[in-house]
């Protein structure tokens, strides 16, 4: 909330600088968003009296003015405005001056004639007709009083204030007001806070002669106070009120509207003034809207209402959206004769809901939403009447219409001093607590070890001992809190198994030259479609965000591939020649759509690589290592994924379930993601694998007997998967086969068309003895026979 420091001084003594005040308020719980010294916004602009005007010989619209600025010699300034005249008092920005719009003025020449400054318009000084009469005219601002030449314009315009924007936390609605802030300043500085005491005289008469109020929903409107003022004299507000309103960001309209706004800013209680002649049937009815009922608000917008919304209606139709905005049909006009003044309490959740539903937020609704003080309604209405009285804006009619369903009793909270100290870890003397609480306008007495606190109606937020502890602490000062180690039984901190598994994977991947990335969990609504998944693919069942920041962040991802491709694309396009990336994150898979419960959050590892030396097999090697780390033996099959190269896509299958899909990115997909080179991506579904624990390693004795190495060169169909041959050799090799590896795969010259040559190296060994030629022969023959049966014949 923005407040004028000068205005605050009318409620509380402020005996420190604005900077110090801000610092001390921050330490009491009132963050300062911004503090602007209005005097800093304008420099070296003074009142000048135009002594003489001569035409400019090189221009038909420029005038040369000799200006008395209170110095020994007049200053020459050239102006283009035609409303200046000799003898006029004008704002003159001298050489090296600063204007509130940020302009710096320096001496110069205009068409060859020296000009040592600039004469200013109201616009250039950032003021309007409201701030200074005449500021709105087109041309130079002609001052309407004869100030001494050289007078600082800041004095003329009252620019010697600070505008401080306090951030009011949600628990302190009472401080959405000048009085609330001033009260806190009084506590923080230890100075006196002076609450204005409303007093006014009425002209007799009786409000009951004019108005009736009926509240039909006390639940939402527990109190409604009506007052009546007749024979209004609508006119401008006094300067002090205009300045206070402007400092808090409100416009001056006329004295009556300004008083309601000012009292709202001052007390935190929104008021509403109705033109009496517009209230049909001389009656206010506080009721729920009927379904489909319509109202046109002050801003000339029509709203269709629903039955849970509260309206302030007359005998015929709604005049106000309760606590949010008045209706166009009953606003105060220049011609308004009599007014009905409303000061009411509306339940905060109801105002909040209605305000959101109709899309209207006002200073009033903002205060009701946060919670207003039911007891404050009376004070605020009296304060408004006092101002009407003092400003002679109308005649106050006797009587109050105070409609309520019983007012809340005063609350009392009894708390233990020892418990407060135990929670804080301090030893604040009870007397100190009592004095702090009393200064906060929480009347407190001490009974033995307990404090008896009367909670004022404006401090709804105080309910528990902890709330009292906080009040004490923020004034006592948080600097008194001294760090201590937790004094409790020693506990052992542990990691979840899933996190331990992630850690081992991350070690593996980084050791393989991979860099971890972090991407958003939501993606564009059409991003998943870029993978060309077939209709019915579960990945197309993604969850939509109801209120996304934009289309590109609008759905929860069901796969990590598109994010990885985007990162690869970014890097390729930034000429990062080669890269290896990984990400461990979640896929969000709904159990049903539309969503009825929380979705499954499935942990997934994505790999993405590109550049020199990368191919399908380097990626597969990484996938194999990941699976090995997860103690998983998988079977690899060709995969049919639309976004992968059909000839270079595979999946790892365990027990019939696909645990990983990987391969080279399909050229079409690569184009869509703007990849300019081949890239390889994998998705490994950790949610299916994290359960696999690596068993404790049991040592096997090192071999004592020599191994025998044998090579096998085979000829088979080009189509035959080498992995199958490998499996055959492993199976046929039996116990004596220690290892088998591929050392050559060849197609081309000397090999028949449609065939390929594959060469394996077999290592044979027995743990019991050196192998004999017969033993070796037997194994090799068995292997060769099985291979032969599978269509792979020995090359001779």
């Amino acid at each position: 909330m923005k407040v004028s420091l000068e205005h605050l001084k009318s409620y509380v003594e402020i005996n420190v600088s604005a900077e110090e005040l801000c610092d001390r308020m921050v330490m009491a719980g009132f963050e300062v968003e911004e503090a602007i010294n209005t005097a800093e916004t304008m420099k070296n602009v003074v009142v000048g009296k135009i002594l003489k005007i001569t035409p400019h010989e090189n221009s038909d619209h420029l005038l040369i003015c000799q200006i008395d600025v209170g110095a020994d010699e007049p200053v020459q300034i050239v102006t283009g405005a035609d409303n200046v005249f000799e003898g006029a008092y004008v704002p003159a920005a001298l050489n090296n001056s600063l204007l509130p719009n940020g302009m710096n003025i320096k001496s110069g020449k205009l068409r060859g004639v020296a000009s040592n400054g600039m004469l200013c318009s109201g616009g250039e000084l950032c003021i309007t007709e409201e701030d200074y009469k005449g500021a709105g005219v087109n041309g130079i601002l002609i001052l309407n009083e004869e100030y001494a030449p050289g007078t600082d314009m800041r004095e003329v315009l009252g620019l010697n204030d600070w505008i401080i924007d306090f951030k009011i936390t949600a628990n302190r609605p009472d401080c959405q007001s000048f009085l609330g802030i001033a009260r806190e300043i009084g506590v923080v500085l230890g100075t006196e806070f002076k609450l204005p005491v409303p007093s006014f005289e009425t002209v007799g008469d009786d409000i009951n002669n004019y108005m009736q109020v009926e509240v039909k929903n006390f639940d939402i409107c527990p109190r409604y106070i009506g007052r009546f003022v007749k024979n209004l004299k609508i006119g401008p507000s006094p300067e002090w009120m205009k300045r206070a309103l402007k400092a808090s960001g409100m416009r001056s309209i006329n004295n009556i509207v300004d008083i309601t706004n000012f009292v709202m800013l001052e007390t935190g209680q929104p008021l509403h003034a109705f033109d009496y002649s517009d209230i049909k049937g001389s009656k206010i009815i506080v009721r729920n809207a009927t379904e489909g009922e319509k109202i046109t608000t002050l801003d000339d917008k029509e709203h269709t209402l629903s039955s849970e919304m509260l309206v302030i209606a007359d005998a015929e139709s709604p005049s106000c959206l309760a606590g949010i905005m008045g209706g166009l049909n009953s606003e105060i006009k220049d011609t308004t004769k009599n007014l009905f003044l409303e000061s009411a309490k509306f339940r905060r959740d109801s105002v909040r809901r209605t305000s959101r539903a109709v899309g209207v937020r006002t200073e009033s609704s903002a205060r009701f939403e946060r919670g207003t003080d039911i007891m404050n309604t009376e004070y605020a209405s009296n304060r408004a009447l006092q101002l009407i009285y003092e400003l002679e804006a109308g005649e106050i009619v006797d009587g109050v219409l105070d409609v309520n369903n019983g007012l809340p009793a005063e609350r009392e909270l009894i708390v233990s001093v020892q418990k407060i100290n135990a929670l804080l870890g301090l030893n604040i003397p009870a007397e100190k607590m009592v004095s702090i609480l009393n200064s906060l306008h929480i009347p407190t007495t001490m009974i033995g070890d307990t404090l008896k606190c009367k909670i004022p109606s404006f401090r709804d937020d105080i309910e528990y001992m902890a709330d009292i502890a906080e009040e004490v602490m923020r004034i006592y000062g948080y600097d008194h809190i001294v760090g201590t180690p937790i004094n409790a039984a020693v506990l052992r901190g542990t990691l979840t198994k899933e996190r331990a598994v992630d850690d081992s994977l991350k070690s593996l991947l980084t050791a393989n030259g991979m860099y971890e990335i972090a991407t958003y969990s939501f993606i564009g609504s059409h991003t998943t479609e870029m993978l060309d998944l077939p209709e019915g693919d579960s990945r197309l069942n993604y969850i939509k965000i109801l209120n996304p920041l934009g289309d590109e962040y609008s759905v929860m991802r069901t796969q990590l591939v598109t994010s990885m491709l985007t990162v690869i694309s970014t890097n390729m396009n930034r000429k990062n020649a080669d890269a290896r990336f990984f990400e461990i994150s979640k896929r969000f898979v709904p159990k049903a759509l539309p969503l009825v419960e929380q979705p499954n959050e499935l942990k997934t590892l994505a790999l993405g690589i590109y550049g020199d030396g990368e191919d399908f097999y380097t990626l597969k090697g990484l996938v194999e290592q990941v699976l090995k780390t997860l103690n998983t033996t998988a079977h690899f099959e060709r995969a049919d994924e639309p976004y992968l190269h059909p000839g270079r896509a595979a999946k790892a299958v365990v027990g019939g379930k696909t645990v990983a899909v990987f391969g080279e990115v399909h050229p079409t997909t690569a184009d869509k993601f703007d990849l300019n080179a081949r890239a390889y991506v994998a998705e490994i579904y950790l949610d299916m694998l994290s359960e696999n624990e690596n068993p404790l390693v049991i040592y096997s004795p090192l071999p004592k007997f020599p191994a025998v190495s044998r090579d096998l060169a085979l000829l088979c169909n080009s189509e035959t998967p080498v992995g199958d041959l490998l499996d055959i050799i492993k199976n046929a090799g039996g116990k004596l086969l220690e290892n088998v590896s591929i050392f050559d795969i060849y197609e081309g010259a000397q090999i028949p068309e449609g065939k390929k040559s594959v060469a394996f190296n077999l290592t044979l060994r027995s743990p019991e003895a050196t192998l004999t030629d017969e033993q070796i022969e037997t194994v090799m023959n068995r292997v060769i026979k099985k291979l032969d049966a599978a269509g792979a014949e020995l090359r001779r």
Partner: protein
Amino acid sequence: MQKKLEEIRVAAKNALAAAEDAKAVDDLRVQYLGKKGEITAILKQMGSLSAEERPKMGQLANEVRADIEAEIASALSVMKEKALKLRLEKERVDVSIPGTVSELGSLHPLNSTLNKLIDIFKSMGFDVVDGPEVETDYYNFEALNVPADHPARDMQDTFYLTENILLRTQTSATQIRTMEKRKPPIRMICPGRVYRSDDVDATHSPVFHQVEGLVIDKGITMCDLKGTLETMAKEIYGSDTKVKFRPSFFPFTEPSVEVDVSCSECGGKGCRVCKGSGWIEILGAGMVHPKVLEGCGIDPNEYSGFAFGIGLDRLTTTRHKISDIRLLFENDLRFLKQF
């Protein structure tokens, strides 16, 4: 014959001394000692000698042979030494050329910072737990003392998936899940991703990360909160780091504080990083609100506790002096390689 043998001895020695390589030596060995060699040829003439002379000449021939063999061995050894020296000389490398390395990747800076935090808190007895990122209104708000239509909901702009299901705005939701499942003493941190409807700029991201902390036990005080956070701050920012509490408001803690650490860049004097204040705001914290404890079936008269929520992204950017939070999610390799 004796003369002949002596001549051979001298000739062989001279030849060996002149031999330039192993091949030449070997040729000489064949020439003198081979089956058709000169010594053999002499021995073949032994038959023509007298029985008296034969053993003498035999002995001499053996002497000469042994002599030549020794000469050959020594010549070979010299040659080997020479060859080795030559090889070593030839194999000199330029030691100023950088070594060959296989590239190591690295963790994302968010996670390397998180790992550091996990180490610190684990050593203080905190368990690491995880919670869902898609939460219900109950866990994200209501159980945390933020009922529907409460003004405190304005503090966080929420992404909704349905009226009642949302992307968690704070890891605090896991506090409730933990307290429901476990009875005190509780000491846990919950790191995780959170979401708020903030437009992307240099300091805001709609996706960011928090590390929630929760301690519930008998006799836990606000001084313990400060002590715990001081330990963390000193580990992260250096042992000179100071911690400051500023009063604030969170619906689920009372008293609530914002926690600032002294700026590690300027040591508290005020600089560009801390915007002249000397302090950097890194987290919100407080004593767990009695309503929250009650809601989880923990008696606030018996137990107390504290909670805190560290902004991991801010911690990471301030720690590494990263000027723009967007760099964290852009994943430019040149950025990632720096960590």
